[in-house]
């Protein structure tokens, strides 16, 4: 092994049973831990009841990305009915469970990408360029579950995506949170529709036709105006179908992902979406020289979703090649996630986005969390995805090595307990 980075930052789990056993509604404990005479701790699992499905994955290493940064080496993970039931060191597997053995591989949570445009299978995401704000739009009609780009993403370990409209207008509509299921109905693949709002600030939504909204001042007015209209409608008890979802943003029921970049751009964004309108907002991109003002944004509680640019050299004119993620972390970002803005960066290269962040100075393990638990927390889906913990969706990825290393390949990807990609079965896609 070249260095110890792979284990850096982990608290090795030694507690008996890891307090991971969860209780089912039956009040009957599904899992208990037996400590043998030789000191080994074994999970004892309740056999499958009729109609239940079960999967056990044994791996050389399990990186859970839970709050305690638990690492199991080796480890075993038990799945029942699509949910993670338990994690431990060893287990006796009752009949009926499918058992998968990866003694030399690393099991990690499925990766989450909050900024993607591949849901239609091509560049066909919505971007209505007539009106500057479209709070009534959703990407749901454009989603083609299991398309080839999603499959490629899956072969790169991506299991959860936020499929959003483009950034051509200031408020381009609502996106959908969905999983990389290849053989499912739309309903089975989708986690939330709408999953959140997409807003674009700074250069992209500038109205180049020359009507109102060429400059940043008017763009800001346009955005605040639609916020004010939605708030007024709620206050006055009016029914405004086009603004109903936006009202959910104001009540923090739905998160927002804001396309914004540059030092002035991100502070403007933070002021509008955290101060003027108190919302659950995530800064997306945040590139160019935005790292210079990142502290101001982080301090008022904004989460950051960096990508597709991971380095900066041109606009800062510092001479040094700046790792954008490293700067956000240095400035105190507690919740940094990475994106591909796919297809700007190929969906399957999400892990490389973190690898490049590590290369340019960010902490390597934090950059794995930036692909798993951080985006899940930012978008309020950490009860289901983002880490390997009992009770969560069984979205698992088995890697031949450390997940961020470009040399590691995905051996297996499981979503909701179902094997969606198996390298030996399907052939290596990425």
């Amino acid at each position, binding site marked *: 092994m070249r260095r110890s980075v792979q284990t850096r930052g982990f608290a090795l789990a030694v507690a008996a049973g890891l307090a991971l056993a969860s209780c089912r509604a039956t009040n009957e404990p599904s899992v208990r831990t037996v400590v043998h005479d030789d000191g080994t701790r074994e999970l004892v699992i309740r056999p499958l009841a009729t109609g239940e499905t079960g999967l056990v994955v044994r791996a050389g290493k399990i990186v859970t990305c839970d709050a305690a940064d638990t690492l199991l080496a080796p480890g075993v993970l038990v799945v029942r009915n699509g949910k993670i039931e338990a994690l431990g060191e060893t287990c006796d597997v009752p009949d009926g469970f499918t058992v998968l053995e990866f003694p030399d591989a690393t099991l990690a949570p499925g990766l989450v990408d909050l900024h993607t445009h591949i849901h239609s299978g091509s560049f066909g995401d919505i971007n209505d360029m007539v009106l500057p704000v479209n709070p009534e739009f959703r990407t749901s009609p454009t989603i083609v579950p299991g398309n080839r780009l999603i499959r490629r993403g899956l072969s790169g370990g991506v299991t959860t995506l936020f499929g959003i409209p483009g950034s051509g207008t200031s408020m381009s509509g609502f996106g959908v949170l969905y999983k990389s299921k290849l053989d499912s109905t739309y309903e089975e693949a989708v986690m939330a529709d709408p999953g959140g709002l997409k807003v674009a600030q700074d250069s992209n939504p500038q109205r180049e036709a020359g009507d109102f909204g060429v400059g940043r001042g008017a763009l800001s007015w346009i955005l605040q105006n639609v916020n004010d209209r939605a708030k007024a409608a709620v206050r006055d008890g009016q029914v405004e179908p086009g603004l109903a979802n936006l009202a959910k943003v104001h009540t923090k029921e739905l998160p927002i992902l804001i396309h914004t970049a540059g030092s002035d751009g991100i502070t403007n964004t933070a002021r509008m979406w955290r101060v003027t309108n108190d919302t659950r907002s995530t800064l997306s991109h945040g590139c160019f020289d935005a790292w210079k003002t990142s502290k101001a944004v982080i301090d008022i509680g904004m989460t950051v979703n960096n990508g597709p640019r991971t380095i900066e050299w*041109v606009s800062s004119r*510092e001479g040094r090649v700046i790792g954008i993620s490293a700067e956000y972390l240095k400035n105190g970002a507690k919740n940094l996630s990475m994106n591909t803005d796919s297809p700007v960066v190929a969906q399957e290269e999400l892990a490389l986005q973190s690898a490049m962040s590590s290369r340019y100075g960010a902490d390597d393990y934090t950059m794995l969390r930036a692909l798993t638990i951080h985006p899940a927390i930012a978008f309020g889906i950490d009860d289901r995805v983002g880490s390997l913990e009992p009770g969560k969706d069984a979205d698992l990825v088995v890697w031949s090595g450390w997940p961020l290393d470009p040399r590691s390949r995905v051996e297996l990807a499981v979503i909701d307990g179902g094997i969606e990609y198996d390298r030996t079965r399907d052939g290596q896609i990425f």
Partner: protein
Amino acid sequence: MKLRNLLSSCAALALASLASAGDLVAIKAGHVETVSHGCIQHAVILVEDGKIVTVGKDLPIQRGIPVIDAPDLWVVPGFVDAYSRVGLEARGSSEFNPHVKVDAEIFARNDEFRDALEAGVTTLGLYPAGSGGMPGQACVVRPAGATAQEMLVKSGSYLLFVFRSDARSKKMLKDAFEKANEYVEKEKKAREKWEKDQGKKKDDKKEEKKDEKKEEKKEGTAAELQDESAAQEKKDEKAEKTDAAKGYVPPEADEKVKPFLDLRAKKLRMLVTLFTAADWLHFSQALGKEDIGYDLRIALTRDIDVWEVAKPIGEKKLRVLMEPEITTVWGTLRQRNLPAEFVAAGAKLVLLPRGDAPSIFKNWPRHVGEIIAAGLDRDVALRAMTLEPAEMLGVADRVGSVDAGKDANLLFFTGDPFQATSKLAAVMLEGRIVHGEVQQ
């Protein structure tokens, strides 16, 4: 003219006795920057026939001599802009035309000369236009005169080579000297043939001629002095050639070859324009071991990287021509004062105005002030606007400093010329106030 020699040898005394000789004017100034020999407080400059007769501290002035009384003013030599396109036709070539002289392009009555003069530029090196290659030879003018002839101070001052890192530029230089070699071979053969035909010894003759030359030297006019300084640099070989001239006629060199023979003979300098550090590498490689006198104009742009080669250029004690600009290191906001850096590395500095527009001429000292503030030595800066370009242009015998024998090209400032609050009160060109006013 003969008087001048006398005067300079016994300054004050002679001054008094010649009070009535006419066309004299004395300048009393609080502060005279001679550039050649420091700064003189309470100085007196005596000017006759447009030339400085003497300069010194608190010299007595004979009654009757008109006096310019400027106790509060700072007097500096007229500025010399070594690289200008003032009053010239805008078009140029980028071909190989080393024989073309820019002199013929001069529009004598162009207002631009007046603008330059009023801003204190009393000597201009005019270069032939060209975005590449060798567009021709520069000349030196005084920005006054009804005809180009009246303006011309020196023709064939330097050969301009706008060098770029490309095969064409390098080949152009190598080919030119290759052609010169061919001529040298040809001339050698012709001479050998002539010598053979003559069958005579020429050593005696040679001695005679040298004596003659010494005599010539003794009575030198200003114009001849210039030739003389050039002659000092001449090699014996060249002298021999002239000696032989009576009987032996060397074959005529092609007009495109001649400049390169002149370069080798140090009768002509080359001004090489560089845009990047790499240009220097390629130019040096192309020049090889060729021994010529050359200066470098470095076209400063925001992110120019020539600091990479400041050391080798400085070590060669080369002269660099630059505009007073602060540049940055590429990709950064780190500022560099390249003129100061090159001086520190050992190079000689000539400063140029940032352009040829009247407003730029007017702001020239202020622009230089900016890089003085950023670390360039002030006296080096003043020299870089006066004596250094004069030497580069080969007219230091006439202009560039406040010294006896030189043209009375003087600038009267209300304070230190590099202070933004100082004003150029008057410009004197060859003893006459041509712009502004001073107390008489």
